[in-house]
């Protein structure tokens, strides 16, 4: 492999990794794994949205639940925006506006964090497939026999 090709391949790995982080499934889409990309997008996004619906956006808590927040952030950088909203929004009394307690908070936090960790698995999968040249090797997605 020439130096130029090595640089291009390294750049592709970075692009695939970043795309997979930005939008779940986008990394696989770049390497022409359309079906895999669609499944990952639906599964990860649905899990994250169910978590937000159950526990409200209060479960994304960059101050009180930092380890959970780091896991949630793996779902997409857009989670950082939600974290910024929950961090900065305060009521007139000076209390945080979006808070979540009880079982709903637990379930919501678990769902959103697992969604993030599942996307981390997908990022690694997309980057590894690209490293192995899978997108170039197969080219077209194989149909059901």
């Amino acid at each position, binding site marked *: 492999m020439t130096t130029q090709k090595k640089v291009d391949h390294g750049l592709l790995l970075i692009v695939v990794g970043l795309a997979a982080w930005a939008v779940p499934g986008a990394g696989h889409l770049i390497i022409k794994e359309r079906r895999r990309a669609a499944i990952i997008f639906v599964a990860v996004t649905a899990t994250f949205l169910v978590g937000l619906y159950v526990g409200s956006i209060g479960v994304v808590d960059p101050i009180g639940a930092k380890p959970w927040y780091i896991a949630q952030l793996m779902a997409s950088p857009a989670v950082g925006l939600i974290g910024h909203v929950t961090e900065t929004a305060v009521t007139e009394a000076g209390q945080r506006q979006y808070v979540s307690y009880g079982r*709903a908070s637990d*379930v919501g936090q*678990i769902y959103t964090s697992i969604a993030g960790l599942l996307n981390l698995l997908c990022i690694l999968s997309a980057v590894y497939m690209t490293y192995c040249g899978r997108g170039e090797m197969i080219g077209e997605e194989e149909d059901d026999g």
Partner: protein
Amino acid sequence: MTGDWGMLAAAFVDPIHIPTDPTSVLWMFPLLLAIAVVYKATKMRVLFGLKFAKEVAVLFGTVSGFMVFLGAAMIFLVKLITE
């Protein structure tokens, strides 16, 4: 139109009510399904529709069965210790 978006956004602002009783454990199953789907989507070399569905079902069933078994074993252990 704006009202629709407002209603949609409002759904994510207030948490829903989940009682602290044994039924809340049922929330585990949709999560297990999501984990099985994503795991198999990343693990299978080629995604054939039916084979994928079968493998997801087997993994989901196995993990669910083990979780139920583990729950029952824990309840049994607690009863054994406390009674």
